[in-house]
């Protein structure tokens, strides 16, 4: 009988202190034991994320070097490193190259390619869609070292695959068009993320809105402009924010061109590597990293402002 198995009626008076504790402590572990559970994770984050970040800020204010007396006894030099950075043409050259790299491969390349694939595949099912998506995602999930080697093999001056296919002796894109090469490479490498994000976003565009536009006689481009883009505006901005920052800090181009030839692909991530580790000026490198961080913040704030302004 239901009557026999139902629990006895709950007491009318509820312990208020206990009720309050349950509201913030759903598992009933208590502060100490709950803390013990998150402590390992917090410790790892502190050691590998928070401390290095603060350490970089500190290093930027010193003359710390990899070797020599300044390595043994670094001295605080104030903002000397920052002044040196902003007055160094090599730094501004790297910044300009990074802007080209971000605009070319992320903002234009990955967004356009990713969206185009997502748009063409939106109504498709079956093997073609799976094959295209599989290939695009493969480019994304393979380790950088592997894909870099593949691209060097493809583009190399001495017997590169592309050269052999095109029968063009002396064809050396990595030397003749280094920036274009890393832009194409990074577009190919990163389009998967944009494709998946836009694929999900396009699924949220109500079919009736597209059909309404079609019935009005709207062309493909007009449907995109009047229905699709307004609907996925938030997705576009979030996508731009993420891939801009990722690309800004990307070090993979180094594995294709090593920053060369003649510094033509020395983007900021590579520039920091060169001054801090090859040039051994860790203090100066830390200062440049701090400037990169500030640029990233400005870019992020710009996108978040756009995202919040509900036009």
């Amino acid at each position, binding site marked *: 009988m239901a009557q026999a198995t139902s629990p006895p009626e709950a007491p009318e008076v509820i312990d208020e202190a206990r009720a309050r504790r349950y509201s913030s402590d759903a598992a009933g572990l208590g502060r100490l034991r709950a803390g013990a559970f998150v402590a390992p994770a917090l410790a790892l984050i502190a050691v590998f994320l928070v401390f290095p970040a603060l350490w970089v800020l500190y290093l930027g204010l010193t003359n710390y070097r990899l070797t020599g007396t300044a390595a043994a006894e670094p001295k605080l030099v104030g903002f000397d490193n920052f002044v040196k950075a902003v007055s160094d043409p090599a730094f501004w050259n790297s910044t300009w190259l990074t802007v080209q790299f971000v605009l070319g491969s992320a903002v234009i390349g990955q967004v356009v390619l990713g969206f185009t694939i997502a748009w063409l595949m939106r109504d498709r099912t079956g093997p073609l869609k799976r094959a295209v998506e599989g290939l695009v995602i493969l480019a994304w999930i393979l380790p950088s070292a592997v894909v870099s080697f593949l691209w060097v093999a493809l583009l190399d001056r001495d017997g590169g695959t592309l050269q052999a296919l095109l029968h063009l002796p002396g064809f050396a894109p990595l030397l003749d068009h280094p920036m274009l090469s890393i832009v194409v490479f990074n577009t190919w490498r990163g389009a998967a993320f944009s494709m998946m994000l836009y694929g999900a976003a396009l699924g949220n565009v*109500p079919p*009736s*809105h597209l*059909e*309404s*536009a*079609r*019935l*009005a*006689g*709207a062309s493909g481009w*007009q449907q995109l402009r*009047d*229905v699709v883009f*307004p*609907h996925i505006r938030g997705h576009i901005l979030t996508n731009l924010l993420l891939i801009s920052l990722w690309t800004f800090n990307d070090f993979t181009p180094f594995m294709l061109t090593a920053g060369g030839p003649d510094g033509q692909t020395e983007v900021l991530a590579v520039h920091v590597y060169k001054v801090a580790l090859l040039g051994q000026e860790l203090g100066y490198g830390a200062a440049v990293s701090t400037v990169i961080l500030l640029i990233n913040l400005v870019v992020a704030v710009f996108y978040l402002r756009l995202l919040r302004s509900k*036009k």
Partner: protein
Amino acid sequence: MAAIELRGLTKVYPGGVKALDSLDLAIPDGEFFALLGPSGCGKTTLLRTIAGLETATGGAVVIGDRDVTGVQPGARDIAMVFQDYALFPHMDVTDNIAYPLRIKKVGKADRQRKALEVGTRLGLDQLMDRRPGQLSGGQQQRVALARVMATQAKAFLFDEPLSNLDARLRLEARTFLKKLQRELGVTTVFVTHDQAEALAMADRMAVMEAGHIRQIGTPAEVFQRPANTFVAAFIGSTPMNLLDGTVRGDTLEVAGCKVPVPVSAEGLLVDGERIVYGVRPEYNTYSAEPAEGSLGGKVAIVENLGASHLVTLEVGDVLVQAVVPEGDEPELGVDGFATPRRDRALVYRDGELVSA
């Protein structure tokens, strides 16, 4: 404005589902036509095929004198109101109404004037700079109607135009839509799963089942003389009594009782054949005493319909329903008798109506 004609229209979806099976239908110019049927019967597919949003597998769609079977939706000169209205959330009411004109490259001043003119007619003049998100369901529907009207299309298509409104608003909108369609005089096809909506609004209607049209006619014809037992069971707010019976000379033996042969089937029946006897509860007269040709049994259920009651009698092992005016409803368990109106009762043979 134009007539719509479908010839042998067939739609087979990939995977072999036959949504439309060789349909023929002619809708004259200016008619308000309803496509009615249960979900999955193909009524929405039919509407979308007329619109060009679905490609016909076979047959032809003719609008006016033009065969538009292979024509893009935007070039068919038709306009459609979607179930969710499909208003663009980032555009205000003016821009939404004027959108089809903008695509047709009408100048900005002209299309704004047209939008205001149509909007004013539908009582939207105070709301022209609002966004759809700031409008009630009824207002959104009128914006969708205004957008359709602004196009001056040859025919309008409405997909479940009332289903997103709440119950009270739906009745108002029903009257409003019917009046508007009459005033505009534009050929209009609408889809609904609600038989009351179809009966109330349409000039003529088609009842569909599994990709076939089971009956075409005026609401009165479809209600009074359903062509088959499917339509008979589907139409009517209280379902029709459909009782197995046998022909016995001049009478029918139904549920152990003798009833006279209905007027519509006189002289068309063969002695001894098995038939289905149909009568709407509204056409059954209830009495506490036996009457000539009545179905007698015990009162099993009494349901309140407001101004009347639906009484269910247990006649043998079948149930017979009758509508009783308020005040005359019987007690449960007493003996009751339902006498079908001879001029309204129907006979079905193999599921099809027997009539001259």
